[in-house]
């Protein structure tokens, strides 16, 4: 199983990587990549899924200058101040 493939191009040693459930062999010397049967299709499918489902934009969010890690609050004191004109 752990039989090492040889790069068909430069005859270097190919190492197996697992990326999102897809095995790829990459040559340690020339960085060339070998895909097994069906693996190119799997990659294409994954790419399509990625493009189809962009992450939803934040519904509440925070501006770039917002306080990191949720803030301080000081519940009573800051609440009282929220009730007055400034």
């Amino acid at each position, binding site marked *: 199983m752990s039989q090492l493939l040889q790069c068909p191009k430069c005859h270097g040693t190919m190492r197996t990587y697992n990326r999102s459930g897809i095995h790829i062999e990459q040559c340690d010397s020339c960085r060339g990549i070998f895909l097994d049967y069906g693996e190119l299709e799997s990659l294409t499918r994954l790419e399509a899924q990625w493009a189809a489902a962009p992450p939803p934009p*934040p519904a509440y*969010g*925070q501006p770039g*200058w*917002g306080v990191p890690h949720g*803030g301080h*609050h000081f*519940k009573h004191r*800051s609440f009282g101040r929220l009730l007055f004109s400034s």
Partner: protein
Amino acid sequence: MSVATLIPELLRVGQMLAEDGGEPEVLADRPDGVVVKVAEVVVKAHPTGTDEEALCDRLRAASSAMLRGVFLAPLSMPDGTLYTRVGERLVTAWPAGTAVDPQDPDAAPWEAAAHALARLHTTDVTAVFPAGAPPAGGPRRVARAMERLRRIDHPQAKVVRAAYRSLPAWATGAAVAPPPSRLRGLTHGDWHLGQVVALAGSWLLIDVDDLGVGDPSWDLARPAAWYAAGLLPPEVWRRFLDAYRAAGGPALPAEGDPWSVLDIPARALVTQSAALALVTAEREGRGLDEVDTALVTACARITSMADVS
């Protein structure tokens, strides 16, 4: 007329309008806002220099049928007008409602307030201001706060001024039109949680002084600023936003990032609040408390972000 001589005059107006007597109460006695209460009537002296014509239009707007259940309507004076004069001050009378309890943050009516704002923002400006609407407060209030900051000498003032300088001109009260991407509509102009009262089971908006045509997102900017400065818990902020959106509030995109709209007004409100926090601390002869410090620190972050962008 001094505050001390104004108060008995306001109480007299209140006693004239109240059905029963009752212990008169002074609710506010700042030079720019004197408010008294007699039984079920509140009487307010508007700041010196209040534009009489604009106040008159704003009182009519608050009385209009379209804002019933949204804005507290003024009481009429015995002669049928909506305001009277005490010395050089314009004076109005209102039904007394129940304010938000400062001791009980958990009971704060965030959803009801968001609904009232959403309804205000969806009301046609020309319907409530047929003769043309005065400008809403918003950016002018930022400029006024910075003006007050200029009159004191506080070591942190430069931090606040730097944040102010990072704002676009239209957000600083300068006579520059906001970009066309900004919404224009009926706007409260100085909204915060102290600007709602409960009356007969409904939470209504109060204070017509800054009501007019403006960018409605400014009415959401105070809680936004407080949240971004770390002073309003995220779950409260979410409740407020959800309720505003659920009520069809037009100032925010229906979904997605609200900060595309709120960023500038919230930065402006942090600056305004920090400026007045320094003015107040100076007047009271004390150091900055945690809330003041959180606001000034937010100013510093605003400036450092503006520097890199």
